[in-house]
């Protein structure tokens, strides 16, 4: 479907002002907060950055085996 959307320079000016204070623009028929999978990924990363030494040890042990 070919869009025939034509927006004037004035329109861009008006909308720039209107959007200035908006935090978000999302709309949806259902909400989906950050999933467990994403949270887990975040948690793992926190652990590995906190303890570099133990991470190295784990890697070398894996290599040895």
């Amino acid at each position, binding site marked *: *479907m070919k869009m025939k959307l034509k927006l004037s320079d004035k329109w861009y000016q008006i909308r720039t002002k209107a959007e200035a204070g908006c935090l978000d623009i999302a709309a949806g028929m259902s909400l989906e907060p*950050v999933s467990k999978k994403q949270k887990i990924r975040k948690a793992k990363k926190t652990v590995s950055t906190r303890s570099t030494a133990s991470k190295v040890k784990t890697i070398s042990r894996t290599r040895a085996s």
Partner: protein
Amino acid sequence: MSRSAVKILNLRANRLVTATLVSGVSIREAQIAQMHWSRALQKYLEAIPKEKWPEHGGWDWEAKHKKYGRLAAYRFYGVECANKMQGMLLLSTLLRTSRIDKKKQIVYGVYLASAPWNLRLLTDAPEYSLVGSVLVATAIQASHDEGCEGRISLHALEQSEGFYKSCGMKDLGVDEEHENRLKYFEMTTKAAKIFLTGK
């Protein structure tokens, strides 16, 4: 699928830049956009408290494309700039009855979102603005194409309600039928005309 030129505001350079409005986003484009968006989102989430995490942070546009992209009733639109998808819209052309004028049919915005790096909710220095306005204008145009004279409807997330009010959409209150009890908004033909032309 078609592509046309629109403009969005590069907030860092403070100037309008040319972007591409993609009508009929492909599954490949949705996959790439989802990859960019989820990587960016992860970085923002690490820096902000959990209470401020967006309620739509788990939206997966690739999965949405797989579910809806094969059906003639749904259309995917995207705004592309700097080789990245800056915002996406999933529109239902399975027409519904307007709640303002029950004799009229209306096009429904199933999902609409901007890329994480454009959200003030996540960053003090968003990259682009006007993505949402261009997508609302796109929905109005699609409504005209469907014979709905610019009427559109959607369920706004709480932190986006102000944006849809700024577009001239009417807040019809909390929708008890919506699984998350979001507020339902409708744009009338008159409001659509004012939104697009200013009069």
